[in-house]
């Protein structure tokens, strides 16, 4: 997989309490060729699915009842090693700079504002996945011959 991974092989996890948004993102991703997409409308299930699915990218809604996007990122904090680039793309209708700053410091890598444009979402996903795969490639290359797992 680390040779020349195809972006469409990437594992993408969608977390949004609104079923409508989940269906929309799933279909957008499917239409663009992404085959490994899993989604959740209940954010409390994120840690378990995260461990099982090992996503390359997390699409996360910020405003959710009970457990919001910030709390989800806090839950994922221990699961994402510091030397691993695992992008979290935030989907939010809140454009206030302080919210963006807070999300960025909590571990988010990029934002898409709702209502979003399909092309913009796909481009951001593509860019983040490319960066993710470059990081994986660099880590793989950095491991001495014979030690790579």
């Amino acid at each position, binding site marked *: 997989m680390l040779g020349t991974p195809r972006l469409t092989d990437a594992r993408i996890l969608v977390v949004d309490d609104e079923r*409508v948004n989940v269906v929309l993102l799933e279909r957008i991703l499917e239409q663009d060729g992404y085959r490994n997409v899993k989604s959740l409308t209940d954010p409390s299930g994120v840690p378990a699915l995260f461990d099982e699915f090992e996503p390359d990218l997390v699409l996360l809604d910020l405003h959710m009842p009970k457990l919001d996007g910030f709390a989800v990122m806090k839950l994922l904090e221990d699961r994402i090693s510091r030397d691993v680039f695992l992008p979290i793309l935030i989907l939010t209708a809140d454009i206030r700079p302080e919210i963006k700053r807070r999300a960025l410091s909590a571990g988010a890598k990029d934002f898409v504002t709702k209502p979003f444009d399909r092309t913009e979402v796909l481009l951001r996903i593509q860019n983040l996945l490319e960066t993710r795969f470059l990081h994986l490639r660099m880590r793989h290359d950095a491991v001495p011959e014979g030690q790579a797992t």
Partner: protein
Amino acid sequence: MWRRYGDAVYTLMTLAIFGFETIALGALSLSFLLGRTTGIASTPVEGILLGIVISTASALALLGLYLLSYHFVSNLRDRWQADQLDQWTEWWVGLALTGPDQPGAHASDRYRLPRVAVHSVLSLLESVKGEEGDRLKEALAGHGVDSWFMRRARSGHLTAKLDAIENLGKARLPQAFDQLLGLLHHAKPVVRRMSARAAGVTLAIMPPTEGPDSPHARFIQAIKHADLQPGVVQESLLLLETRAGPILKELLSDPELSDSLRWVALETVGRLGLADMAELATASCDHPDPEIRAATFRCLRRLGTVPEGAEACLLEALDDDVDFVRIQAAHAAAFLPAETALAALEPHLQDDSWWVRRAAAGSLARLGEIGVATVRRAAESHPDKAAREMAVQILLEADEMSPAAARLATGVA
């Protein structure tokens, strides 16, 4: 609450209580009946008692049955509605992504959509814009939903009107924009509030055009002349998102702008982080109204910048007669060049206002090593006790001083 999270427990408890009472009363009725045949319940009083017991048992049984059927039916109905919502969502998403090639996209035109279908497409329109959003709006118009919302927004019935305005806001239909602007002058504040919100989100997706008749210009005129609370105007400006810049620019450039709108515009520039408007915001730094002077410096603080042209005004504001202006100026002074900030803020460690002292010490600490050193020096040897205490407090909060050293500096045992 229980309807959502405790349905199963509530149903079981109801069943247990009513079941227990029904069985007990049933047994009592039976024993009375048996007694009647054996001559035990033979008097008229016992007959009446028997009638009461039987009717109570029947009423409880009926009520229990009703509650159980209610839960059963509402559960089925919820599931059916969720299925319907899923089906409609899939259909609308298909339509948005594939366009008119979606099966049935034209066949169903002009028939009235069920409520669940409208709910589904409105939720979707809150998430998607561009070509996909336009397709959904076209479909809504094809079914006459847009004109139905607009008709209901003219309704005399308040709930129907508010419901329609909210839906127009979700749908962001440009054809409803002028009607929403008209509703900004409605007699009821709640209608004006909802309409301002809906007009803001609608304008946010409309293409920017110029000229006195452009939607932007009409929106500006409407908010200038409508009787709206500052919070409502601010919300509608925030909802303009990326379209807010030109409108705020025009508002702040207007010398005739009311104080209340100028205050709102400054707050919104800061909240939206529109750093390219810092110069324009600065023009209000010597406004006669202290609320506006304070809003100007709060705006600069939020933008994290003080334009060169604003430095003199900011330094002057640090000595303003009004303390809340000095507070905001002291906060904004953290973004002056370090040397200027040091010289300007240090004297305010002994300001009369606790809040100004706090803002000055906080801004000094944000200047980096040189600022922290000044605050530390003040904590150790400032002749003014209030200045020493504030400096200690700020150093403690910034983890730049240990609690033991703080106790020593303030002389607290």
